[in-house]
Protein backbone atom coordinates (compact mmCIF):
# COMPACT_ATOMS: atom_id res chain seq x y z
CA UNK A 1 0.00 0.00 0.00
CA UNK A 2 2.81 2.31 1.00
CA UNK A 3 4.74 1.48 -2.18
CA UNK A 4 1.61 2.05 -4.24
CA UNK A 5 1.19 5.51 -2.72
CA UNK A 6 4.89 6.30 -3.27
CA UNK A 7 4.67 5.35 -6.96
CA UNK A 8 1.47 7.41 -7.25
CA UNK A 9 3.18 10.51 -5.84
CA UNK A 10 6.20 9.98 -8.07
CA UNK A 11 4.01 9.62 -11.10
CA UNK A 12 2.21 12.86 -10.29
CA UNK A 13 5.55 14.63 -9.85
CA UNK A 14 6.79 13.38 -13.24
CA UNK A 15 3.56 14.41 -14.93
CA UNK A 16 3.70 17.87 -13.34
CA UNK A 17 7.31 18.30 -14.38
CA UNK A 18 6.45 17.20 -17.90
CA UNK A 19 3.52 19.62 -18.13
CA UNK A 20 5.63 22.50 -16.91
CA UNK A 21 8.38 21.76 -19.40
CA UNK A 22 5.95 21.07 -22.20
CA UNK A 23 4.17 24.42 -21.78
CA UNK A 24 5.21 26.66 -24.66
CA UNK A 25 5.82 29.52 -22.29
CA UNK A 26 7.21 27.81 -19.29
CA UNK A 27 9.16 29.61 -16.63
CA UNK A 28 12.58 30.67 -17.88
CA UNK A 29 11.53 31.13 -21.50
CA UNK A 30 11.60 34.66 -22.98
CA UNK A 31 8.08 35.94 -23.45
CA UNK A 32 8.67 39.63 -24.08
CA UNK A 33 10.88 42.66 -23.75
CA UNK A 34 10.75 45.66 -21.48
CA UNK A 35 10.70 48.46 -24.04
CA UNK A 36 9.84 51.48 -21.92
CA UNK A 37 10.55 52.28 -18.30
CA UNK A 38 10.01 55.32 -16.13
CA UNK A 39 10.97 55.26 -12.50
CA UNK A 40 12.29 52.19 -10.79
CA UNK A 41 11.00 48.86 -12.07
CA UNK A 42 11.40 45.99 -9.62
CA UNK A 43 11.68 42.53 -11.16
CA UNK A 44 11.37 39.30 -9.23
CA UNK A 45 12.70 36.33 -11.12
CA UNK A 46 12.69 33.07 -9.33
CA UNK A 47 13.25 34.07 -5.72
CA UNK A 48 15.61 36.94 -6.47
CA UNK A 49 14.85 40.62 -6.69
CA UNK A 50 16.32 42.67 -9.56
CA UNK A 51 16.08 46.13 -10.96
CA UNK A 52 14.95 46.03 -14.56
CA UNK A 53 15.71 48.53 -17.31
CA UNK A 54 14.74 48.95 -20.93
CA UNK A 55 15.90 46.07 -23.07
CA UNK A 56 15.57 43.40 -20.39
CA UNK A 57 14.07 40.21 -21.78
CA UNK A 58 11.23 38.98 -19.59
CA UNK A 59 10.49 35.37 -18.85
CA UNK A 60 7.46 33.40 -17.84
CA UNK A 61 6.98 33.73 -14.10
CA UNK A 62 8.56 37.17 -13.86
CA UNK A 63 6.91 39.55 -11.42
CA UNK A 64 7.06 43.30 -12.11
CA UNK A 65 6.39 46.17 -9.73
CA UNK A 66 6.20 49.77 -10.97
CA UNK A 67 6.75 52.94 -8.97
CA UNK A 68 3.64 54.99 -8.10
CA UNK A 69 4.71 57.56 -10.68
CA UNK A 70 6.44 55.23 -13.08
CA UNK A 71 5.51 53.04 -15.99
CA UNK A 72 6.80 49.93 -17.67
CA UNK A 73 5.88 48.66 -21.09
CA UNK A 74 6.21 45.03 -22.06
CA UNK A 75 6.05 44.04 -25.71
CA UNK A 76 5.43 40.37 -26.22
CA UNK A 77 6.83 38.26 -28.97
CA UNK A 78 3.48 37.97 -30.70
CA UNK A 79 3.12 41.78 -30.91
CA UNK A 80 0.87 42.28 -27.91
CA UNK A 81 1.72 45.22 -25.65
CA UNK A 82 1.12 45.67 -21.95
CA UNK A 83 1.74 49.00 -20.24
CA UNK A 84 1.87 49.06 -16.45
CA UNK A 85 1.61 52.30 -14.51
CA UNK A 86 0.98 53.96 -11.17
CA UNK A 87 2.12 51.29 -8.75
CA UNK A 88 1.10 48.38 -10.90
CA UNK A 89 2.12 44.84 -9.92
CA UNK A 90 1.98 42.17 -12.56
CA UNK A 91 3.05 38.61 -13.00
CA UNK A 92 3.61 36.93 -16.36
CA UNK A 93 2.15 33.54 -15.70
CA UNK A 94 2.79 32.07 -19.11
CA UNK A 95 0.46 30.19 -21.41
CA UNK A 96 -0.10 26.80 -19.85
CA UNK A 97 -3.85 26.86 -20.40
CA UNK A 98 -4.18 27.97 -24.01
CA UNK A 99 -4.12 31.64 -23.14
CA UNK A 100 -1.24 33.92 -22.24
CA UNK A 101 -1.95 34.67 -18.65
CA UNK A 102 -1.05 37.81 -16.77
CA UNK A 103 -1.97 38.45 -13.18
CA UNK A 104 -2.47 42.00 -11.95
CA UNK A 105 -2.61 42.98 -8.33
CA UNK A 106 -2.74 46.77 -8.23
CA UNK A 107 -2.20 49.96 -10.17
CA UNK A 108 -3.21 50.42 -13.79
CA UNK A 109 -2.56 48.44 -16.93
CA UNK A 110 -3.36 48.96 -20.57
CA UNK A 111 -3.11 46.18 -23.09
CA UNK A 112 -3.40 46.04 -26.82
CA UNK A 113 -3.30 43.15 -29.19
CA UNK A 114 -3.63 43.91 -32.86
CA UNK A 115 -4.89 41.66 -35.57
CA UNK A 116 -1.41 41.26 -37.00
CA UNK A 117 -0.19 39.83 -33.69
CA UNK A 118 -1.33 36.33 -34.63
CA UNK A 119 -1.06 35.49 -30.97
CA UNK A 120 -3.22 33.55 -28.62
CA UNK A 121 -5.84 35.25 -26.49
CA UNK A 122 -4.65 36.91 -23.32
CA UNK A 123 -6.16 36.37 -19.93
CA UNK A 124 -5.80 39.20 -17.45
CA UNK A 125 -6.46 38.00 -13.95
CA UNK A 126 -7.26 40.42 -11.16
CA UNK A 127 -8.35 39.67 -7.59
CA UNK A 128 -12.10 40.00 -8.30
CA UNK A 129 -12.37 39.40 -12.02
CA UNK A 130 -10.59 38.29 -15.13
CA UNK A 131 -10.81 39.27 -18.74
CA UNK A 132 -9.93 37.12 -21.73
CA UNK A 133 -9.41 38.99 -24.97
CA UNK A 134 -7.89 38.37 -28.36
CA UNK A 135 -7.68 41.25 -30.80
CA UNK A 136 -8.63 44.01 -28.38
CA UNK A 137 -7.46 47.05 -26.47
CA UNK A 138 -8.44 47.81 -22.94
CA UNK A 139 -7.58 49.38 -19.61
CA UNK A 140 -7.54 47.46 -16.33
CA UNK A 141 -7.63 48.89 -12.84
CA UNK A 142 -7.26 46.31 -10.10
CA UNK A 143 -7.97 48.32 -6.97
CA UNK A 144 -8.00 47.21 -3.35
CA UNK A 145 -11.59 46.09 -3.11
CA UNK A 146 -12.69 46.80 -6.66
CA UNK A 147 -11.67 45.93 -10.17
CA UNK A 148 -12.52 48.05 -13.20
CA UNK A 149 -12.19 47.20 -16.86
CA UNK A 150 -12.75 49.40 -19.88
CA UNK A 151 -12.60 47.71 -23.25
CA UNK A 152 -11.63 50.36 -25.78
CA UNK A 153 -12.11 48.11 -28.75
CA UNK A 154 -12.53 44.48 -29.67
CA UNK A 155 -14.41 41.82 -27.76
CA UNK A 156 -13.64 39.83 -24.66
CA UNK A 157 -14.98 37.50 -22.07
CA UNK A 158 -15.41 38.83 -18.54
CA UNK A 159 -15.59 36.45 -15.57
CA UNK A 160 -16.35 37.41 -11.99
CA UNK A 161 -14.18 35.68 -9.42
CA UNK A 162 -15.34 34.68 -5.97
CA UNK A 163 -13.06 34.69 -2.96
CA UNK A 164 -10.51 32.00 -3.65
CA UNK A 165 -10.47 32.78 -7.34
CA UNK A 166 -13.32 30.52 -8.40
CA UNK A 167 -15.38 31.72 -11.39
CA UNK A 168 -18.76 33.06 -10.37
CA UNK A 169 -20.44 34.06 -13.62
CA UNK A 170 -19.35 35.74 -16.79
CA UNK A 171 -20.46 37.63 -19.87
CA UNK A 172 -19.14 38.80 -23.21
CA UNK A 173 -17.84 42.31 -23.39
CA UNK A 174 -17.63 44.52 -26.43
CA UNK A 175 -15.67 47.66 -27.25
CA UNK A 176 -16.84 50.74 -25.40
CA UNK A 177 -18.18 48.88 -22.36
CA UNK A 178 -17.04 49.56 -18.83
CA UNK A 179 -17.30 46.94 -16.10
CA UNK A 180 -16.86 47.55 -12.41
CA UNK A 181 -16.79 44.87 -9.77
CA UNK A 182 -16.73 45.64 -6.09
CA UNK A 183 -15.96 43.10 -3.40
CA UNK A 184 -19.14 41.32 -2.32
CA UNK A 185 -21.23 42.86 -5.11
CA UNK A 186 -22.04 41.69 -8.61
CA UNK A 187 -20.35 43.40 -11.54
CA UNK A 188 -22.02 46.40 -13.17
CA UNK A 189 -21.77 47.22 -16.84
CA UNK A 190 -21.97 50.74 -18.26
CA UNK A 191 -21.74 52.04 -21.82
CA UNK A 192 -19.05 54.53 -20.82
CA UNK A 193 -16.25 54.60 -18.28
CA UNK A 194 -17.05 56.59 -15.17
CA UNK A 195 -15.71 60.12 -14.88
CA UNK A 196 -13.70 59.03 -11.84
CA UNK A 197 -12.07 56.27 -13.88
CA UNK A 198 -11.13 58.68 -16.62
CA UNK A 199 -9.91 61.27 -14.15
CA UNK A 200 -7.60 58.93 -12.27
CA UNK A 201 -6.42 56.88 -15.23
CA UNK A 202 -2.79 57.54 -16.29
CA UNK A 203 -2.83 60.27 -18.90
CA UNK A 204 -0.83 58.34 -21.45
CA UNK A 205 -3.46 55.59 -21.51
CA UNK A 206 -5.64 57.94 -23.53
CA UNK A 207 -3.36 57.42 -26.51
CA UNK A 208 -2.39 54.31 -28.43
CA UNK A 209 0.50 52.43 -26.90
CA UNK A 210 3.65 53.03 -28.93
CA UNK A 211 5.42 50.13 -30.60
CA UNK A 212 9.06 50.33 -29.56
CA UNK A 213 10.27 46.77 -29.98
CA UNK A 214 12.22 47.68 -33.09
CA UNK A 215 14.78 49.52 -30.96
CA UNK A 216 15.58 46.38 -29.03
CA UNK A 217 15.97 43.84 -31.79
CA UNK A 218 19.71 43.73 -31.30
CA UNK A 219 19.91 45.59 -28.01
CA UNK A 220 19.64 43.53 -24.88
CA UNK A 221 20.06 44.47 -21.24
CA UNK A 222 20.48 42.38 -18.16
CA UNK A 223 18.58 43.12 -14.95
CA UNK A 224 20.67 44.22 -12.00
CA UNK A 225 20.62 41.72 -9.18
CA UNK A 226 19.59 43.19 -5.83
CA UNK A 227 18.88 40.55 -3.17
CA UNK A 228 16.87 37.46 -2.38
CA UNK A 229 13.23 38.42 -2.00
CA UNK A 230 11.76 39.14 1.36
CA UNK A 231 8.29 38.03 2.41
CA UNK A 232 7.01 41.59 2.20
CA UNK A 233 8.05 41.86 -1.43
CA UNK A 234 6.00 38.86 -2.49
CA UNK A 235 3.34 38.93 0.20
CA UNK A 236 0.48 39.99 -2.08
CA UNK A 237 1.42 37.23 -4.51
CA UNK A 238 1.72 34.61 -1.84
CA UNK A 239 -1.78 35.55 -0.73
CA UNK A 240 -3.21 35.66 -4.25
CA UNK A 241 -5.69 33.14 -5.60
CA UNK A 242 -4.52 29.53 -5.81
CA UNK A 243 -4.35 29.59 -9.62
CA UNK A 244 -1.77 32.35 -9.47
CA UNK A 245 0.37 30.94 -6.70
CA UNK A 246 0.27 27.38 -7.93
CA UNK A 247 4.06 27.12 -8.41
CA UNK A 248 5.14 29.23 -5.48
CA UNK A 249 6.03 26.42 -3.12
CA UNK A 250 8.66 25.27 -5.61
CA UNK A 251 9.66 28.78 -6.58
CA UNK A 252 10.24 30.23 -3.13
CA UNK A 253 11.16 27.03 -1.32
CA UNK A 254 14.75 28.23 -1.09
CA UNK A 255 13.64 31.22 0.96
CA UNK A 256 12.34 29.04 3.74
CA UNK A 257 15.88 28.94 5.02
CA UNK A 258 15.58 32.63 5.82
CA UNK A 259 14.19 32.94 9.34
CA UNK A 260 12.28 36.11 8.61
CA UNK A 261 10.66 34.62 5.53
CA UNK A 262 9.84 31.41 7.34
CA UNK A 263 8.32 33.16 10.32
CA UNK A 264 6.12 35.27 8.11
CA UNK A 265 4.97 32.21 6.26
CA UNK A 266 3.99 30.63 9.54
CA UNK A 267 2.30 33.81 10.75
CA UNK A 268 0.15 34.02 7.60
CA UNK A 269 -0.29 30.31 7.05
CA UNK A 270 -4.08 30.55 6.76
CA UNK A 271 -3.62 32.75 3.66
CA UNK A 272 -1.45 30.17 1.93
CA UNK A 273 -1.99 26.80 3.63
CA UNK A 274 -0.04 24.93 0.95
CA UNK A 275 3.15 26.10 2.66
CA UNK A 276 2.34 24.01 5.71
CA UNK A 277 3.42 20.90 3.82
CA UNK A 278 6.71 22.62 2.92
CA UNK A 279 7.47 23.97 6.39
CA UNK A 280 6.29 20.96 8.30
CA UNK A 281 6.75 17.99 5.95
CA UNK A 282 6.81 15.61 8.85
CA UNK A 283 3.10 16.22 9.34
CA UNK A 284 2.43 14.85 5.88
CA UNK A 285 4.73 11.85 5.85
CA UNK A 286 2.76 8.66 5.27
CA UNK A 287 2.49 6.72 8.53
CA UNK A 288 4.14 3.31 8.60
CA UNK A 289 1.26 0.86 8.45
CA UNK A 290 3.32 -1.74 10.21
CA UNK A 291 3.59 0.62 13.20
CA UNK A 292 -0.16 0.97 13.21
Amino acid at each position, binding site marked *: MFLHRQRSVQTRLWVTAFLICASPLSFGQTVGTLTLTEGRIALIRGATAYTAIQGVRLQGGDILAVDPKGQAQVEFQDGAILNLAQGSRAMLLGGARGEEEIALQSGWAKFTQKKSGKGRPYRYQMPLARLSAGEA*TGVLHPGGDFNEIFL*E*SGVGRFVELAKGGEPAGGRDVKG*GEFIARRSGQPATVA*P*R*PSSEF*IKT*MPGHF*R*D*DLPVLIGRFKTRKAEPKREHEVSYAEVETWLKASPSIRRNFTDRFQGRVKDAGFRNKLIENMQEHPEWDRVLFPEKYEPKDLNQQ
Partner: protein
Amino acid sequence: MKLIVKFNLVFLLIFIIGLAIAAYISRDLLQRNARDEVLQNARIMMESALATRTYTSNQVRPLLETQMKYEFRPQSVPAFAATEQFNDLRKKFSDYTYKEATLNPTNPRDRTSDWETEIVNQLRQTPDLAEIIGERETLTGRALYMARPIQIKNAACLTCHSTVEAAPKTMIELYGPANGFGWKLNEVVGAQIVSVPMAVPVKRSDDTFKVFMISLTAVFAFIFIALNLMLHYIVIWPVTRLSQIADQVSLGKLDAPEFTSKGKDEISILAGSFTRMRTSLTQAMKMLGE
Protein backbone atom coordinates in the same frame (compact mmCIF):
# COMPACT_ATOMS: atom_id res chain seq x y z
CA MET B 1 -7.82 141.08 -73.92
CA LYS B 2 -4.12 140.51 -73.66
CA LEU B 3 -2.55 137.50 -75.23
CA ILE B 4 -1.29 136.16 -71.93
CA VAL B 5 -4.74 136.40 -70.40
CA LYS B 6 -6.27 134.52 -73.30
CA PHE B 7 -3.51 131.96 -73.07
CA ASN B 8 -3.99 131.51 -69.32
CA LEU B 9 -7.74 131.17 -69.63
CA VAL B 10 -7.38 128.43 -72.21
CA PHE B 11 -4.66 126.80 -70.18
CA LEU B 12 -6.77 126.82 -67.01
CA LEU B 13 -9.72 125.37 -68.85
CA ILE B 14 -7.60 122.59 -70.22
CA PHE B 15 -6.09 122.04 -66.76
CA ILE B 16 -9.48 121.75 -65.09
CA ILE B 17 -10.80 119.34 -67.66
CA GLY B 18 -7.61 117.27 -67.50
CA LEU B 19 -7.65 117.22 -63.71
CA ALA B 20 -11.28 116.13 -63.64
CA ILE B 21 -10.65 113.28 -66.05
CA ALA B 22 -7.53 112.23 -64.12
CA ALA B 23 -9.48 112.39 -60.85
CA TYR B 24 -12.30 110.28 -62.17
CA ILE B 25 -10.05 107.63 -63.68
CA SER B 26 -7.60 107.47 -60.78
CA ARG B 27 -10.30 107.38 -58.10
CA ASP B 28 -12.05 104.52 -59.83
CA LEU B 29 -8.78 102.68 -60.30
CA LEU B 30 -7.69 103.17 -56.71
CA GLN B 31 -11.02 102.09 -55.31
CA ARG B 32 -11.01 98.97 -57.45
CA ASN B 33 -7.47 98.25 -56.34
CA ALA B 34 -8.50 98.69 -52.71
CA ARG B 35 -11.40 96.31 -53.13
CA ASP B 36 -9.19 93.81 -54.92
CA GLU B 37 -6.69 94.04 -52.11
CA VAL B 38 -9.39 93.39 -49.55
CA LEU B 39 -10.71 90.52 -51.62
CA GLN B 40 -7.25 89.04 -51.90
CA ASN B 41 -6.87 89.22 -48.13
CA ALA B 42 -10.21 87.50 -47.73
CA ARG B 43 -9.21 84.74 -50.14
CA ILE B 44 -5.96 84.18 -48.28
CA MET B 45 -7.87 83.96 -44.98
CA MET B 46 -10.34 81.52 -46.49
CA GLU B 47 -7.64 79.31 -47.98
CA SER B 48 -5.79 79.40 -44.67
CA ALA B 49 -8.91 78.19 -42.90
CA LEU B 50 -9.38 75.44 -45.45
CA ALA B 51 -5.76 74.37 -45.03
CA THR B 52 -6.27 74.16 -41.27
CA ARG B 53 -9.35 72.02 -41.80
CA THR B 54 -7.50 69.65 -44.10
CA TYR B 55 -4.51 69.39 -41.75
CA THR B 56 -6.79 68.67 -38.81
CA SER B 57 -8.77 66.10 -40.71
CA ASN B 58 -5.77 64.29 -42.17
CA GLN B 59 -3.16 64.55 -39.46
CA VAL B 60 -4.62 65.55 -36.12
CA ARG B 61 -7.85 63.60 -35.96
CA PRO B 62 -6.24 60.15 -36.45
CA LEU B 63 -3.92 60.86 -33.52
CA LEU B 64 -6.81 61.70 -31.23
CA GLU B 65 -9.05 58.76 -32.04
CA THR B 66 -8.12 56.79 -28.95
CA GLN B 67 -8.41 59.83 -26.71
CA MET B 68 -11.89 60.39 -28.08
CA LYS B 69 -12.99 57.13 -26.50
CA TYR B 70 -12.41 58.74 -23.12
CA GLU B 71 -13.14 62.39 -23.68
CA PHE B 72 -14.29 64.23 -26.73
CA ARG B 73 -11.53 66.32 -28.24
CA PRO B 74 -12.99 69.25 -30.18
CA GLN B 75 -9.47 69.81 -31.50
CA SER B 76 -10.14 66.85 -33.78
CA VAL B 77 -12.99 68.71 -35.49
CA PRO B 78 -11.81 70.62 -38.59
CA ALA B 79 -14.33 73.44 -38.08
CA PHE B 80 -13.24 73.93 -34.48
CA ALA B 81 -9.57 73.96 -35.46
CA ALA B 82 -10.11 76.55 -38.20
CA THR B 83 -12.17 78.77 -35.92
CA GLU B 84 -9.71 78.56 -33.05
CA GLN B 85 -6.77 79.32 -35.33
CA PHE B 86 -8.60 82.39 -36.60
CA ASN B 87 -9.55 83.50 -33.09
CA ASP B 88 -5.87 83.53 -32.28
CA LEU B 89 -5.24 85.68 -35.32
CA ARG B 90 -7.93 88.07 -34.18
CA LYS B 91 -5.94 88.94 -31.09
CA LYS B 92 -3.77 91.05 -33.38
CA PHE B 93 -6.23 91.74 -36.18
CA SER B 94 -9.49 92.18 -34.35
CA ASP B 95 -11.46 93.47 -37.32
CA TYR B 96 -11.07 90.21 -39.23
CA THR B 97 -13.56 87.46 -38.55
CA TYR B 98 -14.04 83.86 -39.62
CA LYS B 99 -17.04 81.77 -38.84
CA GLU B 100 -18.34 78.40 -39.93
CA ALA B 101 -21.89 79.65 -39.75
CA THR B 102 -24.23 76.68 -39.60
CA LEU B 103 -28.00 76.48 -39.49
CA ASN B 104 -28.00 73.51 -37.10
CA PRO B 105 -24.58 73.35 -35.47
CA THR B 106 -23.27 71.03 -32.79
CA ASN B 107 -21.42 73.88 -31.14
CA PRO B 108 -23.85 76.75 -30.40
CA ARG B 109 -21.22 79.37 -31.16
CA ASP B 110 -21.44 78.38 -34.84
CA ARG B 111 -25.13 79.11 -35.17
CA THR B 112 -25.96 81.57 -37.96
CA SER B 113 -26.98 85.13 -37.23
CA ASP B 114 -29.73 86.84 -39.28
CA TRP B 115 -27.62 87.99 -42.18
CA GLU B 116 -25.64 84.75 -42.20
CA THR B 117 -28.87 82.77 -42.41
CA GLU B 118 -29.76 84.63 -45.58
CA ILE B 119 -26.42 83.82 -47.12
CA VAL B 120 -26.62 80.15 -46.19
CA ASN B 121 -30.14 79.88 -47.59
CA GLN B 122 -28.98 81.54 -50.78
CA LEU B 123 -26.20 78.98 -51.08
CA ARG B 124 -28.61 76.14 -50.34
CA GLN B 125 -30.97 77.35 -53.06
CA THR B 126 -28.20 77.79 -55.62
CA PRO B 127 -26.10 74.64 -55.53
CA ASP B 128 -23.80 75.82 -58.32
CA LEU B 129 -22.86 78.98 -56.51
CA ALA B 130 -19.24 78.63 -55.41
CA GLU B 131 -19.03 81.78 -53.34
CA ILE B 132 -20.83 84.96 -52.45
CA ILE B 133 -19.01 88.26 -52.09
CA GLY B 134 -20.62 91.27 -50.59
CA GLU B 135 -20.15 94.29 -48.36
CA ARG B 136 -21.85 95.22 -45.15
CA GLU B 137 -21.65 97.77 -42.44
CA THR B 138 -20.26 96.70 -39.12
CA LEU B 139 -19.61 98.46 -35.85
CA THR B 140 -16.05 99.15 -36.93
CA GLY B 141 -16.90 100.28 -40.43
CA ARG B 142 -17.50 98.81 -43.82
CA ALA B 143 -16.45 95.21 -44.30
CA LEU B 144 -16.22 92.86 -47.23
CA TYR B 145 -17.35 89.30 -46.69
CA MET B 146 -16.73 86.17 -48.66
CA ALA B 147 -18.90 83.12 -48.10
CA ARG B 148 -18.40 79.60 -49.39
CA PRO B 149 -20.82 76.73 -48.83
CA ILE B 150 -20.16 74.01 -46.30
CA GLN B 151 -21.45 70.99 -48.12
CA ILE B 152 -21.39 67.47 -46.69
CA LYS B 153 -19.46 65.59 -49.33
CA ASN B 154 -17.80 63.03 -47.10
CA ALA B 155 -19.95 60.34 -45.53
CA ALA B 156 -17.52 60.23 -42.60
CA CYS B 157 -18.95 63.57 -41.48
CA LEU B 158 -22.25 61.89 -40.82
CA THR B 159 -20.68 59.76 -38.09
CA CYS B 160 -21.13 62.72 -35.80
CA HIS B 161 -23.99 64.48 -37.50
CA SER B 162 -26.56 61.93 -38.63
CA THR B 163 -28.23 60.48 -35.53
CA VAL B 164 -27.59 60.65 -31.81
CA GLU B 165 -27.16 56.87 -31.69
CA ALA B 166 -24.40 56.88 -34.30
CA ALA B 167 -22.45 59.74 -32.76
CA PRO B 168 -19.56 59.16 -30.32
CA LYS B 169 -20.85 59.03 -26.76
CA THR B 170 -18.12 61.38 -25.63
CA MET B 171 -19.43 63.98 -28.07
CA ILE B 172 -22.96 63.64 -26.71
CA GLU B 173 -21.57 64.07 -23.20
CA LEU B 174 -20.01 67.37 -24.18
CA TYR B 175 -22.60 68.91 -26.51
CA GLY B 176 -25.82 67.11 -25.71
CA PRO B 177 -28.21 65.29 -28.04
CA ALA B 178 -30.20 68.30 -29.29
CA ASN B 179 -27.95 70.00 -31.81
CA GLY B 180 -26.01 69.18 -34.93
CA PHE B 181 -27.89 66.08 -36.07
CA GLY B 182 -30.00 65.24 -39.09
CA TRP B 183 -27.44 66.36 -41.65
CA LYS B 184 -27.54 64.64 -45.00
CA LEU B 185 -24.97 63.80 -47.64
CA ASN B 186 -24.50 66.59 -50.22
CA GLU B 187 -26.55 68.97 -48.12
CA VAL B 188 -25.32 72.56 -47.68
CA VAL B 189 -25.48 72.93 -43.93
CA GLY B 190 -23.73 76.26 -43.53
CA ALA B 191 -21.16 78.62 -44.92
CA GLN B 192 -17.58 79.53 -44.24
CA ILE B 193 -17.68 83.28 -43.92
CA VAL B 194 -14.62 85.48 -43.85
CA SER B 195 -15.15 89.15 -43.06
CA VAL B 196 -12.36 91.61 -43.82
CA PRO B 197 -12.48 95.32 -42.90
CA MET B 198 -12.39 97.71 -45.83
CA ALA B 199 -11.42 100.75 -43.79
CA VAL B 200 -7.67 100.43 -44.10
CA PRO B 201 -7.42 99.81 -47.84
CA VAL B 202 -10.13 102.42 -48.53
CA LYS B 203 -8.32 104.97 -46.40
CA ARG B 204 -5.12 104.12 -48.17
CA SER B 205 -6.91 104.54 -51.49
CA ASP B 206 -8.26 107.94 -50.43
CA ASP B 207 -4.86 109.05 -49.18
CA THR B 208 -3.22 107.94 -52.40
CA PHE B 209 -5.88 109.76 -54.39
CA LYS B 210 -5.32 112.97 -52.44
CA VAL B 211 -1.58 112.77 -52.85
CA PHE B 212 -1.98 112.05 -56.55
CA MET B 213 -4.34 114.96 -57.12
CA ILE B 214 -2.20 117.37 -55.12
CA SER B 215 0.86 116.25 -57.06
CA LEU B 216 -0.97 116.65 -60.36
CA THR B 217 -2.14 120.11 -59.36
CA ALA B 218 1.36 121.07 -58.33
CA VAL B 219 2.72 119.90 -61.67
CA PHE B 220 0.06 121.84 -63.48
CA ALA B 221 0.88 124.92 -61.43
CA PHE B 222 4.55 124.58 -62.22
CA ILE B 223 3.78 124.21 -65.93
CA PHE B 224 1.44 127.19 -65.72
CA ILE B 225 4.14 129.43 -64.26
CA ALA B 226 6.82 128.12 -66.60
CA LEU B 227 4.66 128.64 -69.66
CA ASN B 228 3.68 132.09 -68.54
CA LEU B 229 7.31 133.06 -68.09
CA MET B 230 8.25 131.56 -71.41
CA LEU B 231 5.40 133.29 -73.16
CA HIS B 232 6.34 136.56 -71.59
CA TYR B 233 10.03 136.46 -72.43
CA ILE B 234 9.89 134.70 -75.75
CA VAL B 235 6.79 136.21 -77.31
CA ILE B 236 5.08 139.01 -75.43
CA TRP B 237 8.07 141.15 -74.48
CA PRO B 238 9.73 141.03 -77.98
CA VAL B 239 6.41 141.80 -79.64
CA THR B 240 5.72 144.64 -77.20
CA ARG B 241 9.19 146.06 -77.82
CA LEU B 242 8.76 145.83 -81.57
CA SER B 243 5.44 147.58 -81.22
CA GLN B 244 7.05 150.39 -79.20
CA ILE B 245 9.84 150.86 -81.81
CA ALA B 246 7.27 150.78 -84.61
CA ASP B 247 5.31 153.50 -82.81
CA GLN B 248 8.47 155.64 -82.51
CA VAL B 249 9.36 155.16 -86.18
CA SER B 250 5.80 155.98 -87.18
CA LEU B 251 6.11 159.27 -85.24
CA GLY B 252 9.24 160.16 -87.26
CA LYS B 253 11.87 159.18 -84.82
CA LEU B 254 14.03 157.40 -87.35
CA ASP B 255 16.88 157.20 -84.85
CA ALA B 256 14.92 154.88 -82.57
CA PRO B 257 17.11 151.99 -81.40
CA GLU B 258 17.14 148.83 -83.46
CA PHE B 259 15.57 145.73 -82.21
CA THR B 260 17.94 142.80 -82.31
CA SER B 261 16.91 139.25 -81.78
CA LYS B 262 19.21 136.31 -81.84
CA GLY B 263 18.17 132.98 -83.18
CA LYS B 264 16.08 131.82 -86.04
CA ASP B 265 12.65 131.59 -84.48
CA GLU B 266 9.58 133.43 -85.66
CA ILE B 267 10.23 136.49 -83.42
CA SER B 268 13.75 136.80 -84.87
CA ILE B 269 12.33 136.58 -88.39
CA LEU B 270 9.72 139.22 -87.47
CA ALA B 271 12.47 141.40 -85.97
CA GLY B 272 14.57 140.98 -89.12
CA SER B 273 11.61 141.83 -91.35
CA PHE B 274 10.79 144.90 -89.22
CA THR B 275 14.38 146.10 -89.35
CA ARG B 276 14.46 145.76 -93.16
CA MET B 277 11.14 147.54 -93.40
CA ARG B 278 12.42 150.29 -91.12
CA THR B 279 15.64 150.63 -93.19
CA SER B 280 13.62 150.83 -96.42
CA LEU B 281 11.31 153.43 -94.86
CA THR B 282 14.26 155.51 -93.63
CA GLN B 283 15.85 155.49 -97.10
CA ALA B 284 12.56 156.35 -98.68
CA MET B 285 12.09 159.28 -96.31
CA LYS B 286 15.64 160.47 -97.12
CA MET B 287 15.01 160.26 -100.82
CA LEU B 288 11.81 162.25 -100.42
CA GLY B 289 13.65 164.86 -98.38
CA GLU B 290 16.25 165.28 -101.09
